[in-house]
């Protein structure tokens, strides 16, 4: 909770404080990458926050104008590198909508399993890194231990651990793997023989069973930890209208009580993937969830964090259903897409629900294989734009708490 002083300028007796400009970043660890925040402070109170971006600007959009679809795909990996699978999916769907490509049922099923596993991995980092911002080191180690197994499973599927380029235009580059050796991390955690061979889907299910039991521990360690609650509850409060006005999306929007998720409310080409699956859209104020700390206010840091925690459970549910349907789905895992395919003189803007919010791709074709304009609208860019108003009048130590609750990735903001 923010401390209230009678006169905010008086710290002790008649000692007055001076206005000061403090530079936080671009190398500060709790700015999640190369973000520079210029803080105007008076003593401990922050009056103004100006974010400076662009340290990681790699001209991704200009590059996209000179490459065809499959060539640009690896660049989308490097935008939000913590949820690269979901970025691949968003970009592929945009191209598919532009050229009017239909994806078979099996490809959609593979995409759903992979994208939701990616969401679990991304939210685990979000949770761990947020704990780290607030000075709690151990949740970070646990989160990375869990994420490691997802990365192992992804490695079996496509050979890469961070920048996958697995979900591509037309489906996925490969089918899901068959027999694999159990990932070493999973074998160690579950006490199985490390040379054991099993189906990839069974390994995923084994991991999910194990992970689900651990979530209760994260809640004890972090969510309901009284220090954590004191540092997050009733801080950085954002109303639903404010969140919409600033273009905030994803867990940041839903943490403010707006019930909106593109997996349910989005474009038909995207929601088709989730048809026939049972999942809930998580949004504050978490009706029916027990044990919410008393100090929590709708739209504060704690709500945004808790939305992510509950979304992990929903994602696990979705992966389970996906794997259950996998053996019976029809069609191929991919429709071939030629690099030389000419894009029509038309344009598409499509948003998908990435772990950090609604990531949009805007592609304008002009009859060539390369698009005339390839734009990536970043969800973190919009979420970050609200830092200024949120940080007005808070204590200096609470700035990392507010910025961390937005869960930003600078690679996506700067592109």
């Amino acid at each position, binding site marked *: 909770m923010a401390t209230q002083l009678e006169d905010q300028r008086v710290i002790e007796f008649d000692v007055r404080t001076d206005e000061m400009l403090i530079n936080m970043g671009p190398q500060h660890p709790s700015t999640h990458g190369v973000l520079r925040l210029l803080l105007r402070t008076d003593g401990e109170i922050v009056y103004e926050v100006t974010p400076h971006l662009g340290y990681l600007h790699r001209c991704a959009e200009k590059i996209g104008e000179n490459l065809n679809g499959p060539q640009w795909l690896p660049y989308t990996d490097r935008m939000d590198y913590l949820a690269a699978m979901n970025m691949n999916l968003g970009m592929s769907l945009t191209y598919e909508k532009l050229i009017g490509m239909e994806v078979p049922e099996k490809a959609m099923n593979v995409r759903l399993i992979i994208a939701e596993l990616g969401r679990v991995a991304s939210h685990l980092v979000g949770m761990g890194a947020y704990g780290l911002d607030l000075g709690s080191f151990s949740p970070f180690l646990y989160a990375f231990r869990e994420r490691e197994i997802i990365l192992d499973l992804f490695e079996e599927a496509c050979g890469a651990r961070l920048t996958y380029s697995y979900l591509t235009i037309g489906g996925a580059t490969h089918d899901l793997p068959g027999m694999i050796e159990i990932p070493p991390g999973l074998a160690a955690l579950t006490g199985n023989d490390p040379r054991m061979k099993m189906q990839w889907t069974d390994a995923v299910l084994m991991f999910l069973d194990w992970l689900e039991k651990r979530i209760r521990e994260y809640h004890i360690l972090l969510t309901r930890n009284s220090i954590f609650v004191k540092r997050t509850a009733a801080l950085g409060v954002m109303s639903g209208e404010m969140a919409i006005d600033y*273009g905030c999306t994803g867990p940041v929007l839903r943490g403010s009580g707006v019930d*909106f998720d593109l997996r349910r409310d989005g474009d038909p080409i995207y929601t088709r993937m989730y048809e026939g699956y049972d999942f809930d859209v998580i949004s504050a104020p978490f009706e029916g969830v027990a044990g919410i700390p008393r100090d929590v206010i709708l739209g504060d840091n704690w709500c945004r964090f808790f939305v992510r925690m509950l979304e992990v459970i929903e994602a696990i549910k979705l992966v389970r259903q996906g794997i259950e349907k996998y053996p019976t789905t029809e069609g191929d895992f991919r429709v071939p897409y030629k690099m030389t395919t000419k894009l029509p*003189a038309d344009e598409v803007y499509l*948003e998908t629900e990435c772990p950090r919010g609604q990531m949009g791709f805007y592609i304008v074709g002009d*009859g060539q294989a390369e698009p005339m304009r390839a734009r990536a609208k970043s969800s973190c860019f919009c979420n970050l734009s609200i830092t200024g108003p949120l940080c007005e009048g808070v204590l200096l130590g609470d700035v990392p708490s507010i910025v961390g609750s937005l869960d930003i990735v600078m690679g996506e903001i*700067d592109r």
Partner: protein
Amino acid sequence: MTPQEIFTSLTDKFGSDTILALNAEACDPWIEVAPASIVEVSAFLKAEESLKFDMLCDLSGVDYLEPDAKRAKKFPYEPHLEVVYHLLSVSIKHKITIKVKLPRWKNDEEGSLPDVPSVAHVWKIADWHEREAFDLVGINFIGHPNLLRILCPDDWEGHGLRKDYEFPLEYHGVRG
């Protein structure tokens, strides 16, 4: 509401001098608006009960030009600039694309940026999106509270997403 209904309600309010065209056949249907009236149209789109476009998903600048002479013969567009507003209504769950067409340079003088009124006072997020469009595409948003470059350094020259942009050979002595 369908794009056709949105177009009808806009033309009823503003007339066909302001609401210039509807392309309902496009993959994402769009409505073209006269640049001078974009602020009034935006405010109406946001406030009107039956439309309620409360979220500006994206604002992007697009440079329609084919610098390559051989390819330019097949280029399906006239050279111009566009500002594209992708709007979404969170409560009603419908969307629309609004477009504004501008000349590539103001009064055809190379280097002088075309003007369009800023919508930063209608949707707060437009502030940053317009800064990005100014930075990368080179569009001057009139009435913007703080029109500075956002991704490139303040002393950068030129606007990177212009099709005729020439890459600098060096920046502060660092060769590219």
